[in-house]
């Protein structure tokens, strides 16, 4: 792999806090190596800003290996940037070329208010999980793991849905700011397993009610969420959720 360096123009959303107005600021960054990660380029810019006595750009990040779900930049009009199935932290600079202009914004959704610059408040996702995204079992004497055999195909499908990292890219990509892909992944993860059956109906009803309360929009099935999901969560999970929702609504005994 040939390495190269590049000079870039960055247009970054700056916003002091939730109350203030935001705007784009333009920065020139030079001598960026194609081997760097996208966030390492931001590190270099921020170091420079600190030295110049300016406020560095606030952005969420932690594991930098694509699994914690903390990083969340809307890059050139696409959540997590141009690479398929890739989080912002795993995006590397060889995706760009010398002279490029890169536009970086925070997630845009009513359910994700901006805290500062590129950082948004995603606590709504935790509250949606609190509404029923679990199996009600206390720590203690669970039965032997192998006493609950699970068909491999179902276990694999459950795992594929459970791979969701709750980054919120699906919401950011959706024209309705719907959280359906995130929510349906949890519904599928638990609903595909025998352990998840007793609470299956209540779970889907109360989690969807919470999603509405958090002001996420409805799903109109455009597929934008699936296209940008860094963990390739399938949109078929939404169909499964809708089916569960319908069945639960029709057969609810409450």
């Amino acid at each position: 792999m040939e390495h190269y360096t590049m000079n870039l123009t960055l247009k970054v959303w700056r916003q002091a806090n939730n109350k203030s107005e935001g705007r784009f600021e333009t920065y020139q960054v030079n001598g960026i190596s194609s081997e760097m990660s996208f966030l390492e380029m931001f590190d270099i810019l921020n170091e420079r800003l600190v030295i110049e006595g300016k406020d560095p750009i606030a952005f969420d990040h932690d594991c930098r290996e694509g699994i914690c779900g903390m990083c969340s930049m809307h890059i050139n009009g696409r959540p997590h940037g141009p690479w398929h199935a890739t989080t912002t932290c795993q995006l590397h600079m060889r995706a760009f070329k010398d002279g490029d202009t890169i536009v970086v914004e925070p997630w845009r959704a009513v359910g994700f208010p901006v805290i500062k610059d590129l950082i948004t408040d995603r606590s709504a996702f935790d509250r949606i999980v609190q509404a029923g995204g679990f199996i009600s079992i206390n720590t203690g004497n669970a039965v032997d793991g192998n006493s609950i055999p699970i068909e491999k195909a179902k276990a694999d499908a459950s795992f594929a849905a459970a791979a969701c990292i709750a980054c919120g890219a699906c919401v950011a990509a959706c024209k309705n700011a719907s959280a359906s892909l995130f929510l349906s992944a949890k519904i599928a993860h638990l609903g595909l397993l025998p352990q998840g059956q007793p609470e299956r109906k209540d779970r889907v009803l109360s989690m969807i009610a919470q999603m509405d309360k958090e002001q996420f929009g409805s799903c109109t099935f455009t597929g934008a969420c699936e296209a940008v999901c860094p963990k390739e969560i399938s949109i078929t999970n939404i169909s499964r959720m809708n089916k569960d929702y319908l069945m639960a609504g029709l057969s609810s005994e409450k």
Partner: protein
Amino acid sequence: MLDAKIPEGPLDDKWEDYKGHVKLVNPSNKRRLEIIVIGSGLAGASAAASLGELGYKVKCFCFQDSPRRAHSIAAQGGINAAKNYQNDGDSVFRLFYDTVKGGDYRSREANVHRLAEVSAHIIDQCVAQGVPFAREYGGLLSNRSFGGTQVQRTFYAAGQTGQQLLIGAYQALERQIALGNVAMYTRHEMLELVMIDGKARGIIARNLISGELERHFGHAVLLCSGGYGNVFYLSTNAMGSNTTAIWKAHKKGAYFGNPCYTQIHPTCIPVTGEHQSKLTLMSESLRNDGRIWVPKKKGDNRKPNEIPAEERDYYLERRYPAYGNLVPRDVASRAAKERCDAGYGVGTSKQAVYLDFASAIERYGHVEASKRGLSNVDADTIITFGKEVIKEKYGNLFDMYEKITGENPYVVPMRIYPAVHYTMGGLWVDYELMTTIQGLYALGECNFSDHGANRLGASALMQGLADGYFVIPYTIGNYLANEIGTAVIPTSHPAFVDAEAAVKERLETLMNIKGNQTAESFHKRLGKIMWDKCGMARNAQGLQEAITEIQQLKKEFWSDLKISGAIKDFNPELDKAGRVADFIELGELICKDALQRAESCGGHFREESQTEEGEALRHDAEFMYVSAWEYVGDHKWELHKEELEYEVVKPTQRSYK
């Protein structure tokens, strides 16, 4: 005198006996007892959830925006448990024995045995929570091998085991939050421990969004804040992983156990340049199928695929025929360093070795062809089949490798090099996980307890969940049963006022240095000193130099640091500066501990103490103890020793040949 409070009786019975006689707290009293949990990884989330279920009033704190983001999530390969589902001779004793041996006979027998005993319950608990472990076609749980063992006892969920286990614990935690038993404080960082009458009674935390300081009371405080590998700057830890919570506790009187025991993981993606902000692990599970090699010829610049098999040195298979590529991490790391130092390294930096899957792809391809009933299959088809199998097992790791390096590991061997990964050292705790401060506990990676001088793969997840789900719910009762008469102490108490004032003053001091160098630049310099002089190989002269250099760095930090922004604002620079200040002090202690321990054991390799074959040479007569360091003042520590007594295992020179 350090009292580990190890229960009397035979090793097999200690934990059962303990549980049978430990003090209990009745449900109505539990509702009046408050517990603070710092951290929401596997140890913190499992402890907070389990204690909430029991009826205690719990407050849990994390610096991330959600408890689900704690760095346990990045653990890849798996979790060990003595289930013996494979009928390959595993047992509680074997897991116990492997762990003690893997730790190079520097861990406490009673703790490790308890860990092995509860390991099987962890799997059951996680399955019940809906953790989607890998399964066989018959619907039963699947296992694989990890380093340092000869059985298959590792449970896994592709290369995302930590993520799935953490989501399980996170869901249990969110359920307790919904029920009102746990209050969650995200984007909060503990900056001081509050002590009243010699007991831990609360914390001062900073709200990282507003910058405001907050006082929180607890009848007990649990630190579950993870490891301190970022003292080396470059490590596989998350960017935010830090030592601050345990360091504050240490300076208030909690002894620090074996700080120099750090794990350098053999299979990480090599450094590419000065811009590098972190290193990425390639799971140890890859060593099940990947073969590690370097060219037999020095400075061989041919592409790996152009080097014929007979000109490759599969050095682990050559040196350790019994365990081959599955030797423990410390052994594999040193062997890689040895080859690179001798001039056989590969890649542009020559600081890398190959991890090659070509033979596994071919082997699996043949198996797959035979499964499908095909004969006379051409070589390309075999390779295609084989790649499919490898993709199912390790797909996410291969994708990650390709994103970072731009190379396709299905075609070209991975290049790997050792990197800092885990810290076996941590706050000293007794059998009940209590530190030397009354009412202050340490769980998971931030304690020193179970892994000795080297941790075996797939044991970190096991220990974090064992501590949180199955140990602390019992042991904390033994303390809190005596606290039922203690009313909630109002946070207007002078101890809270003073602690908050001290934190405020420190933050102001940091902001007012107004020098010229960033926290990041100090962190990088500290990391370089640590890696060069206290890394994979250490010697007395280098360690003495490191101590002087770190003391100098500390002076420079406190006179030339530059932070932008304000205290009462969202200010990641200030957060980082506070953490780096603590890392610098810890770095000095690590080097002092490494200097004092003039033997090699596990991950701690002193060049002066090695066998003729270059293996770690222990000195049991002199060093068979836990080093527990007491902070007594600036740059000053006093060493206390907990002698290790082996009643069941007989320490020998570790051999994986």
